[in-house]
């Protein structure tokens, strides 16, 4: 059974239908990369997956349970689904270490010492241990994003969502974040990534989804999508992106 199964998902903002009818699933351990032109609804789709946006219709099944049902335990679900944002959104009044331990201490009720030990291990993993005691505003964008990844991982999520994690970064800082994400993928983390980094999609994704106009236009392996796109919209998009 798929970890997440999305059926007929719709989202409108007023009269604007951003997601028309999205159907897809994410398997456990899978790295799914979502690509598409701006305004195609891919970010909205990702934000619906942890209910930062409330879908207007459809179903999202997590382990077979519909997360859109009123009785569904949204906060517990969000603890299991980490999210990294385009603009990192670290808490600026806390040190890097406290950013990472804040969730485990207050939500998982983890003892402080254990939370700090785990946080240091995670910061080590993303290469930020040396900056544990500084405040986020002294870090570069790439460093902040790596801390944000560590912050999400500290909650022991079953799955990670990435909403254009490198779009706000200077070009020379993109690599370090993608590298961290690749390591995460190699560890077997289930990931859904919205990105414009096509090389990342080609190298790391198990599956690539091309979205346009609020629907999934093509859903296939990266090999197929990039070397043999079937839909003319996918072809047009990729030729625009790749022939720069």
């Amino acid at each position: 059974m798929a970890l997440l199964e999305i059926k007929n998902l719709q989202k409108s903002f007023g009269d604007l239908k951003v997601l028309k009818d999205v159907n897809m699933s994410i398997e456990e351990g899978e790295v799914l990369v979502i690509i598409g032109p701006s305004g195609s609804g891919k970010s909205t789709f990702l934000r619906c997956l942890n209910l930062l946006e409330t879908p207007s219709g459809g179903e999202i099944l997590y382990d077979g349970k519909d997360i859109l049902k009123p009785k569904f335990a949204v906060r517990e679900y969000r603890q299991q689904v980490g999210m990294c944002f385009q603009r990192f959104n670290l808490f600026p009044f806390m040190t890097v270490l406290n950013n990472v331990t804040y969730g485990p201490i207050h939500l998982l009720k983890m003892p402080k010492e254990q939370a700090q030990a785990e946080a240091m291990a995670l910061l080590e993993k993303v290469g930020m241990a040396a900056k544990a005691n500084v405040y986020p505003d002294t870090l570069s964008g790439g460093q902040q994003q790596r801390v944000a990844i560590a912050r999400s991982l500290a909650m022991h999520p079953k799955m990670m969502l990435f909403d254009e994690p490198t779009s706000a970064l200077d070009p020379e800082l993109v690599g370090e974040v993608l590298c961290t994400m690749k390591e995460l993928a190699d560890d077997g983390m289930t990931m859904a990534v919205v990105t414009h980094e096509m090389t990342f999609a080609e190298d790391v994704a198990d599956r690539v989804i091309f979205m346009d106009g609020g629907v999934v236009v093509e859903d296939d392996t990266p090999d197929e999508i990039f070397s043999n796109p079937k839909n003319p919209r996918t072809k047009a998009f990729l030729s625009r992106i790749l022939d720069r």
Partner: protein
Amino acid sequence: MRTLQNLNFPKAMAELLPKLFGQALEIVLIVSVVAFVLAILFGFLFALGRLSHHKILNGILVVFQEFIRGTPLLVQLVYIYYVFPLFVEIIAYWCGNPTFKCTLSATVAGVIGLTINYGTYISEVIRSAILAIDKGQTEAALALGFSKRQAMFRIVIPQAFRNSIPVFGNYLLTLVKDTSLMAYITAPELLQTTKAYISQTFTTIESYSILAVVYLVICLILSGLLKVAERKLVRRR
């Protein structure tokens, strides 16, 4: 007719300053501190009320706010000191207690008036500071699994408060100066004490000049303290 030659500053200082630095200064400082702390508390609760989606509560608060902003603080103080107790007595009368006497001390009336007035203004500072915090902060907290309320109280409000501190400082300075309005509700604060001294000695120029300098010194010291506090508290935005 008084001339500059027969001004006697040393004498006025020797007599007036001890009076000012006694009970008068005490009242000003206590009222300022108490009213300021209460005003921030009041303003905070008021701001939360305004940010809630409760339509009726919001409406009441907006009307109240316009009332406070649309009438002078002096009138509010006079109203609280002279009129409010009368209303209480009328209500007591209706409730079958015709001998009930209600009086507010001038200091208490002053604290109430300043709290409500400043609290109302401060509520707007806090409200806009809360609204100015990036939505991403709330989203990050929600994504970790915090509730909306937790995101608000643990992540958004601490930042909003920190950002408001410089503005709070400004309000504290004006509040200290506005305690002088309490002279009109008989509180024996700095202005009232000075006026009493003048009525006995007719040293108008000397006394009011001394009063002005005393306020200036208080405010300069306060503003120095505020700068230090700001530097310590506004570490991070």
